[in-house]
């Protein structure tokens, strides 16, 4: 039994959907209570419901996974990422929300490292936590207001927004669970074909630059931790034109940002 979602699913014909909907409903209530509003958000109840929903979701997704170091690190980083994302959405002070976003960035970078992408981990931390967050904090400080403002103390349609998010998450997780079941059935020789192939078959013709990647026991290429060189070969071999276009895009965006942000004097409101 590979997956917790699958483990719940095989108990019958779709009674497991309540195991998905329940924690998401708890999280929906928690985020709805935590969103800022003029008469004050109910922080304790909202945080309790949100943490309960998140714990339920993690238990559902991770049920049936073997406990080893990789699982523990995965749990740590994914829990930190989800909590940071919740804080980003619900904190009233925008500077604190931006700091919560750095928690998300660092946690997602940890998940990148766990997924054998060390170069992307570094690039993510440098670009996001090092550049984007700092510039955003500069703008926040520039426009800082000490009094409760319309921008920070009010939410726009919090109920409908949370409902949209919860519905989206329910649909995605149900599709993932059903698909995991199909993958398992396909590998066991039963009928059914997966939309998302969990373990892809090795395609011999495609393994040119990736031919040196280590193979695991079942012959599937497993990315080594030192795959920055392979990433470079892939980037500058197969995607060279795209790299050049990305450079052009960066230049154009820089020119555009300077053109938009400069004070012309005429046409200003003050």
């Amino acid at each position, binding site marked *: 039994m*590979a*997956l917790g*979602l699958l483990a719940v699913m095989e108990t019958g014909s779709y009674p497991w959907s309540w195991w998905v909907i329940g924690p998401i409903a708890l999280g929906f209530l928690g985020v709805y209570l935590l*969103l800022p509003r*003029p*008469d*004050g958000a109910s922080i304790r109840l909202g945080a309790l419901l949100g943490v309960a929903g998140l714990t339920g*979701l993690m238990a559902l997704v*991770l049920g049936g*996974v073997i406990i*080893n170091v*990789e*699982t523990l690190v*995965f749990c740590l980083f994914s829990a930190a990422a*989800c909590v940071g*994302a*919740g804080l*980003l959405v619900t904190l009233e002070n*925008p500077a604190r*929300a*931006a700091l919560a*976003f750095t928690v998300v*960035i660092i946690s997602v970078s940890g*998940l990148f490292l766990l*997924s054998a992408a060390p170069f*992307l981990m570094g690039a993510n931390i440098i*670009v*996001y936590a090092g550049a*984007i967050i700092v*510039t955003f904090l500069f*703008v926040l400080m520039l426009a800082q207001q000490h*009094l*409760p*403002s*319309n*921008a*920070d103390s*009010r*939410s726009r349609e*919090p109920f409908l927004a*949370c409902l*949209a*998010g919860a519905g989206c998450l329910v649909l995605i*997780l149900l599709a993932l669970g059903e698909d995991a079941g199909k993958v398992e059935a396909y590998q066991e020789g039963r009928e059914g074909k997966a939309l*998302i*192939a969990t373990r*892809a078959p090795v395609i011999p013709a495609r393994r040119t630059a990736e031919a040196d990647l280590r193979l695991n026991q079942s012959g599937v*290429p497993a*990315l080594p931790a030192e795959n920055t060189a*392979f*990433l470079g070969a*892939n980037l500058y071999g197969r995607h060279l034109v795209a790299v050049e276009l990305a450079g052009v*895009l*960066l230049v*154009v*965006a820089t020119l*555009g*940002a300077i053109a*938009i*942000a400069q004070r012309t004097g005429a046409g200003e409101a003050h």
Partner: protein
Amino acid sequence: MTSPDLPHYLAVAAILFVFGLVGFLSRRNLILMFLSVELMVQGVALNFVAFARFRGNLDGQSFVLFLLTVAACEAALALALILALYRTRSTLDVSPWQELREEDLDPVEDDEPLPLPGALPPIPTLPVAGIAPNRPEETNRV
């Protein structure tokens, strides 16, 4: 019994994406709306990296590099636009811009009053300079 597999990463990425969606729909601060979009981008990047890992194909990681490039360009342009908007209205709220809505839509009005600002913390006072404060007499003299 396995280590965390592709669907686990996809589930975490979906949670991040949905938080970004909720933040973009409900928050009114322009900068927080933009940070929510960046949160959705992080979820998508996690999807790409997880697929690259479990399918043994590095194209996903290359795509995330281009995604980072586009996100950097987007951040620069969004900050320039936010600054321009802030200069005209002196607020980071999006609601003053609702005059750009469709003609047949009603404007959204804020009914509840904002809370009064709490009392400021008292300003600390310093002792008057030049006057020695009363101290207990030192007793090491004979």
